[in-house]
């Protein structure tokens, strides 16, 4: 298996899918001449041409809205929203149009659209550009929401999303493009709506996804040095949400910590904790803990921003609290 960056894995997935199916095309701000603001689509314009690599105006409603329309008539668009913070200006399309079309017209239409975007904080971009609002989007039935934590899953999930017949919001993390990981050779997909145990252990179950996986893996190394072996379940998809591996692990460890980068109120941790309690209350030997972002709009100051974001030490501390 090759070791490549998250950026390369995502880029490869797009490239291979565009080679595989002429109906797949990408559109968004700066995807073409610029090569993508995170350099994911560098070289695409020269290879695939303007028809399939479409620079758009700064108009998110048009980017997602036109993606919906094109997908309804048989294409497989990948609409790119530069950051998830800009998804709010296309909110109607993401939560109120794309997820409704199939059901509202009695199954006549489908929206095989991928909306690629990047979220997350830690880059000193201020309150409006640093958010992790994933839970908001995962609230809506009809929309699929995935957010990978490793290059291998990013590649496999993006390919699966492009081949999926429903709208998929594909959330990357803006501070994770440089992370490296092993990626299988050849063509493969990673199923949407399937969680995965990324690390085995018996002391505490950590349920997480995306950047939280990186924090949790680092915390696991520290804890392991102290003889504490945590099990890490990576949700990978927020909707549909596969609770199977998390439940199985919780029944084994009887303790859980949920790690997410977004705010805790009404968040992924709240949902996962409730589901664990609902399905396995009798197995709990300690209250479930949540590690998440402090409840403020993120500040610009680097130290203050990091203080507000969840850190490896927070995960370590939470694990020790539930032990």
């Amino acid at each position: 298996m090759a070791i490549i960056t998250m950026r390369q894995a995502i880029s490869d997935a797009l490239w291979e899918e565009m080679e595989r199916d002429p109906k797949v095309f990408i559109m968004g701000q700066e995807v073409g001449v610029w090569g993508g603001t995170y350099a994911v689509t560098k070289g695409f314009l020269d290879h695939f041409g303007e028809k399939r690599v479409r620079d758009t105006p700064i108009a998110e409603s048009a980017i997602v809205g036109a993606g919906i329309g094109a997908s309804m008539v048989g294409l497989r668009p990948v609409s790119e929203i530069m950051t998830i913070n800009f998804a709010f200006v296309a909110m109607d399309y993401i939560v109120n149009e794309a997820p409704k079309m199939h059901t509202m017209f009695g199954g006549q239409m489908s929206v095989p659209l991928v909306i690629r975007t990047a979220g997350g904080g830690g880059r000193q971009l201020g309150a409006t550009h640093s958010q992790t609002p994933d839970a908001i989007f995962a609230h809506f039935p009809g929309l699929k929401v995935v957010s990978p934590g490793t290059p291998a899953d990013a590649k496999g999930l993006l390919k699966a999303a492009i081949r999926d017949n429903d709208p998929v919001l594909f959330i990357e993390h803006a501070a994770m493009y440089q992370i490296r990981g092993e990626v299988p050779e050849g063509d493969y997909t990673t199923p949407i709506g399937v969680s995965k145990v990324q690390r085995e252990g018996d002391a505490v179950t950590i349920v997480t996804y995306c950047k939280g996986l990186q924090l949790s893996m680092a915390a696991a190394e520290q804890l392991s040095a102290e003889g504490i072996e945590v099990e890490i379940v990576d949700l990978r998809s927020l909707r549909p949400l596969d609770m199977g591996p998390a439940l199985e692990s919780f029944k084994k460890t009887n303790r859980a910590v949920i790690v997410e980068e977004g705010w805790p109120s009404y968040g992924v941790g709240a949902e996962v904790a409730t589901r664990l309690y609902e399905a396995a209350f009798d197995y709990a030997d300690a209250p479930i803990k949540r590690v998440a972002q402090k409840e403020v709009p993120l500040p610009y100051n680097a130290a203050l921003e990091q203080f507000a974001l969840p850190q490896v030490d927070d995960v370590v501390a939470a694990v020790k609290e539930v032990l």
Partner: protein
Amino acid sequence: MALKKKDHLELYRQMVLIRRVEERSAELYQAGKIGGFLHLYIGQEAVSTGIVSVRQPQDRIITAYRDHGVALNVGISAKAVIAELLGKETGVSKGRGGSMHMADVEKNFWGGHAIVGAHLPIAAGMALGDQYEGRDGVTICMFGDGATNIGFFHEGVNLSKVWNLPVLWLCENNQYGMGTAVDRASAVEQIHMKAEGYGIPHSRLEDGMDIMKVREAVGAALDHIRSGKGPYFLEVMTYRFQGHSMGDPQRYREKDEVTKWEKSDPIGIYHRYIVGDKIAAKADLDKIEEAVEVEVNEAIEFAEASPDPGFDTLYDYMYASKE
């Protein structure tokens, strides 16, 4: 494209059918058999009937929530329309959509969209789909005057010019956005002038109550687009004789104004044209009206006797992907 006698009779039949379905729907609404909102098309029949009669089969049509007219024009049966209003499984959207969400993809009618202005970028995307695949269809996107003041409108119209998309922007100016007159909501009263800012050719049809004039104007616009010249913007002046929706007390307009417009009833105008030009006899038109009466009666009987969707079908159209 000259119309033969039978063509005129068919168009007259469609207009009478729309009128009668709407009148009877108002009764059904008042009887509590139709839920939600009910926006009637009475007074605007010449517009949708004219548009649909000059489109080619490959031309897609998409409209806003006042959609019963287009639904009947494209050939959805009165049975399926009224059954949808009653929320029945036999409705055109299987009871999932209701008044505002009717579509029949087989007939190239793509809804029925209820968020004001939101279907414009979607229409641009559908036109992109045809352009991408090299098909010569035009996407006809109908919307009201009220939709031209929202951001979606501007993003969609701008994109259509940037990408030279085969789309006809067709503004049905019925002079009120709910209860707000055009001059109280729009910076320009001549709505078509908004297209000037996007470099899109445009015109206004002052008499949208005359189906022959609608046909001529729409036909010319479609020819323009089909010749590869990009989008066109056509504003059609019309008037709704009823309130915005059922239960609208209409405090925003004088009764005299409504009476004045009713004198230019599109069905009356067409009736006078057909009989006056000796295309057909009054008796022929009487016969059509009687047949429509029977058809609508049968449709109501059918709809009332139809089953509600079963509770076991609640999740049937959640996702297009088959697991």
